[in-house]
Every structure is written in C-alpha cells, then in structure tokens.
C-alpha cells in the first residue's frame, strides 16, 4: 500500500460560460495595469490523500468516488484527475 495525492479539478465544460472568471478578468485584472491577460477560467480543486496499492487504482478509485457521490455534475462540469506519488 502506498499513499497518493490525487488532485481533482472540476471546471465548466468548454462552451459553458464562467461568469466568475469573466468578472475577475474584467472588473479586477483588466481594470489594473495588467493588459496582457486575455482570459480567466475558474475551477475548483479537491486534493485527496488516499492509500491504494498502485497509482492506477488510486486514480480509478477517486474517479469512482467523484461519480458516485456526485461531487460534480457531468452535465455542466468536467473533471480531471491527476495522481501524484507521495
């Protein structure tokens, strides 16, 4: 058994608007002097610590948890699962 850090990033699917990112861009960043930024997208991240026998199991286990517990709604969001060895 090894311990893994699994990062789950939840963000709106492409094509679905992200009002929060837009507001941060337009009302904060672009109001200042930082004109080279052209887009901001927000996402939510959950960092799991999990003990599993290997990287692959850790990955599939976390994906399963996210789906089962409806951590995100597949209608609007997509998730990316990244596993890091501890």
């Amino acid at each position, binding site marked *: 058994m090894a311990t893994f850090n699994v990062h789950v990033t939840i963000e709106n699917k492409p094509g679905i608007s992200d*009002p*929060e990112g837009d*507001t*941060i861009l337009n*009302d*904060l960043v672009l*109001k*200042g002097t930082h004109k080279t930024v052209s887009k901001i997208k927000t996402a939510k991240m959950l960092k799991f610590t999990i003990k599993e026998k290997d990287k692959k199991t850790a990955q599939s286990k976390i994906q399963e948890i996210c789906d089962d517990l409806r951590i995100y709604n597949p209608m609007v969001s997509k998730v990316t699962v990244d596993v890091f060895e501890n």
Partner: protein
Amino acid sequence: MKVGVVVFPGSNCDRDMYHVLTDVFHLDTEYFWHEKGLPKNIDAVVLPGGFSYGDRLRAGVIAAHSPIIKDVRKMAEKGIPILGVCNGFQILVESGLLPGVLLKNESLNFMCEWTNLIVENNKTPFTNQFKLHEKIPIPIANGEGRYYVDDDTMKKLKKNNQIVFRYSKIVNGSANRIAGVCNEDGNVVGMMPHPERAVESDINPVDNKPSSKIFESLIKKIGVEN
C-alpha cells in the same frame, strides 16, 4: 452634516441603509457610486451590505479595488466615522482598513437568522450610546461571515480594544465569537449583522431600541440632533 452611502455594483442593502439614515434618523444622506470620489464635506461614510461583484473570487475583494476606496481610506485616516455592514465589512477587511478576514461560515451555508450581539467596546462612533456588554437583537444574513485573524493580530485586537461586537453564542464559528471590529483609532467599524434591519419595530420581532443606538451614537458623534 452629511452621510455618504457608497454603492458598488451588486450592493443590495444600500436602499435599506439610506431609508434608515434618512427616514428613521433624519440624517442628510447621499449615495455615492463606487467610480466617483467622495466630496470633502462628508461627515460619515457607510458601506452597505450586498454582493458587490457577485461575491466573486472572495466577498469584498473586487470592490476593495474600486476607485472610491482611496477616498474612504483618506477619510479613515482623518478620523471620520466609517461603518461597514456585512459586505461593507468584507470590503473594509479586504482593503486593509480593518484587520482580519471573513471566511465561509462553518455550516458552509448562507445563514439568515436573528441573533444577539454583545457590545464589547462602547467608545466607537457607532457604540458610544451603549452600556458595555449591552445586548442587541439583530439579524445576520451572510455566507462568508466567519471572522478570523492570526494569533498575533488577535492579541493586538484585544490589547487595543478593537473587538466591538461579539455574538452571545456560537453562530458561525467566528474566532472569539467576533461579529464586529474597529481599526486602532476606533473610527472605522465593521460588523456582519445588519443594524438597518433592526431599528424599526415593525420588522424587529424582539426590540428595536438597542440597534437604534448604533445610529444614535453616530448622531451623537457627528453632532446632529433629530
């Protein structure tokens, strides 16, 4: 004597505050849009509650960068009374005019309920009419109202008598049950509960007298009698 109510995009208690200042306490009050400046002849400034910029990124942080905050800062330095309520408090904290941060409530939910405050400092321009430890029935309505400071700052707050209001019981996980604080000089006060929702007997199911003293204190301070 003039009170300014600052309006940000997404402020939504500005009209309530204006009503209370003008119709209930007969103060000469004017709205100021966040892109404008504040005139010199303002005697007090109120930052009302709401969802400036939709609470995006973090409650209050975007509004803290508004042009008008520069003037609010100048007035704060001059010792003019400044009150931030709810989102106004969050803005004051995010702009560094008050210490600490306001985090998500422990319940993780927006909370709208009536609670009791205890006055811990009756020397500020908004509390000078209270007895120490007087109780104020008042509603809260926020999602990010859990006050937090690091240990060193907490020590300083206590030493300088900067804790103005505390909840009488645990409400949202605030450090030391803090509901409102002031700056070192005591002229800038921020509080999460909504005094403007509690000063009229029609809508206050308990007692509207205590919260009225918040505004009566201001009147005492800036010298307008009604």
